[in-house]
């Protein structure tokens, strides 16, 4: 048998993320796929792909923990689960030092989790029942603008004069976008306005601490959002190497801790100031 591996499965509303770690919390493999309509099947595909990347098989799994909306749909590999907020916090605790605010912008919801000096959660917030400030908002707008989602980051960067969008509501924002198109505004400027709107909606949920880390699918695919957030906050914002995997990795770290194979945060592996955006 090869070395044991620890698996975190984050079955999100939009994407399924699986991370495979060794006992030292090193990322060995991962996979990300649209969650689709059968969470179990998608999770199975992601699990096998990430294990293959790690050079492991299902027999090598020492422990696995699931999280996300579909966390109870993966009983073929684990019955242990934690909330996505818990997993995000766990990832932050083991990867970033000091008092931090984690801002995760996902497909369906966004979360702000604050950790104290000891890495304990001091508070968390989730967006309310609307899509504003989430990936779903950007998806809807990419459709309205007839722009591929993956092109939005580049378009926003190319903007010279941002269009400000004021509404809370995705439907109202869509109307605002149409109005701006009618008035001849450039798509680049509108897209930057949409990014600005996402950050505004998120930052009005809570007051961030000095050190801010941004994660989630929207952050992974739109690095410019982090740069804009840093500009708005007037200080650097950390964007980790794998922003979309934070929840899955946090779940995998729970899997390690549950087996007693790993202690507290390793200072050598903490994200350093040099990695700030």
């Amino acid at each position, binding site marked *: 048998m090869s070395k044991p591996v620890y698996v975190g499965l984050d079955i999100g509303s939009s994407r399924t993320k699986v991370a495979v770690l060794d006992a030292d919390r090193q990322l060995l493999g991962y996979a990300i796929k649209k969650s689709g309509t059968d969470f179990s099947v998608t999770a199975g595909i992601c699990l096998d792909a990430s294990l293959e990347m790690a050079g492991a098989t299902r027999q090598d799994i020492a422990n696995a923990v699931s999280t996300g*909306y579909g966390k109870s749909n993966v009983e073929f590999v684990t019955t242990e689960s*934690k909330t996505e907020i*818990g997993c995000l916090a766990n990832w932050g605790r083991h990867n970033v030092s000091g008092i931090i605010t984690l801002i995760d912008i996902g497909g369906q919801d966004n979360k702000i989790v604050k950790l104290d000096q000891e890495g304990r959660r001091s508070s*968390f917030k989730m967006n309310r*029942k609307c899509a504003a400030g989430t990936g779903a908002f950007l998806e809807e707008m990419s459709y309205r603008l007839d722009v591929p989602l993956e092109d939005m980051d580049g378009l926003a960067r190319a903007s010279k004069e941002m269009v400000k969008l004021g509404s809370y509501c995705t439907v109202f924002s869509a109307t605002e976008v149409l109005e701006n198109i009618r008035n001849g505004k450039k798509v680049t400027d509108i897209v930057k306005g949409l990014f600005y709107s996402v950050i505004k909606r998120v930052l009005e949920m809570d007051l961030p601490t000095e050190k801010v880390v941004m994660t989630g699918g929207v952050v992974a695919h739109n690095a410019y959002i982090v740069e804009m957030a840093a500009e708005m906050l007037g200080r650097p914002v950390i964007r980790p190497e794998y922003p979309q995997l934070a929840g899955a990795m946090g779940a995998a770290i729970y899997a390690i801790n*549950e087996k007693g194979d790993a202690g507290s945060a390793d200072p050598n592996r903490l994200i350093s100031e040099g990695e700030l955006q």
Partner: protein
Amino acid sequence: MIEQSKPKLLRKTIKAGELMNQVMSDYFYGVNEAATTGKQKVAWCTSVGPAELLRALGFAVHFPENHGALLGATRMATDLIPGANAIGYSPDICSYLTADIGAYLKGVTPLAKAYPGIQSVPKPDVLVYSTNQCRDVQDWFGWYSRELGIPSIGIKSPRNLNEVGAAPIEDVSQQIQALVPPLEAISGNKLDLDRLRETVALSKECTELWKQVLETAKAIPAPLTFFDGTIHMGPAVVLRGTQVAVDYYKVLLAELQQNVRDGAGAVEGEKVRLYWDGMPVWGRLRQHSEHFLQLRTNVVASTYCSSWIFPAFDEKDPFRSMAQAYLELFIVRSDEYKEQYMKRMIEEFRIDGIIYHDAKTCPNNSNSRYGLPKRLETATGVPSLVLSGDLNDLRCISDEQTKTNIEAFIEQIEEGK
């Protein structure tokens, strides 16, 4: 602790519940009989309106908010609310109001299903409100007044009080007294002051027993949950001022006190103790109760259940004491008062965390909108969670978000312990 599949914990039943069902059944049949036979005049009263005066004048009393809660608990409300929306009552206003009016428009009531023989809510002879809770009750009764051609009278209460001083008490006392002549005319009975004193005394006794019932949850483990409380408060809402309610709470209290002596908690292996501020989500009562139970968490105290505690009742001074009682309520008070009140509750019930239910259609019973959670967190160090939802309109609810929020909150509390 990582959540794992494990045998489901079972809800503990409160034996007195059977008696309560009988008490409530007798009440509903009683008011129905009054309305259908005309033996007794029927008054509709807001839940913290001057019920004692109505009983003393011989009215059978129906509480539309209780009906609203039944519409919510039976999950009929969400389908009925649009009916009221369509006639101009916004989906953003009280969903008790919109559900109740929607039910009237459609000619349905959960009472008919629960109590064979009852066809409809009891037809009122008069509608009596107090705006101590909100303006919506006045507008609610106003609609029925126009629809049925019956009078709607009431008390326009001062609100947001820090101290309940002599002036507002005098004001409300005068307003209650001003209701006497029209109510005498409608009931055909002259007010007997001794009868009023007796009713106020019974309300006081009921309220004191209800307080003791709720305070049994100070014990660790607590013998009842907030969700039990929302059911067992029924007699305190609809039957205060009667001997029946007093007798019921004596039975309930004895059972809960015995459970405290036996160390029998309502939640097996109680690990976390929460405070619930705001309205229950009636259509999710069972679901929420189960969820907390499986998390070995007990919601041991609440603003809502405690709102039927009226320490000021005094039969020696019935009008003024009623005025004071109905002004001292949490919902009538300033945020400054609310903050101090909740601080006391946190200490007395040894609370680990507070859940604020921000009910979309009930701003007056949602206390998370003016910075209270943050202020209280800073003052006490007790963490809080705001849940977006509604008392009756399930269109305003995301079950999955609620579940995630609650689980993450319990995780946070347990990590901090």
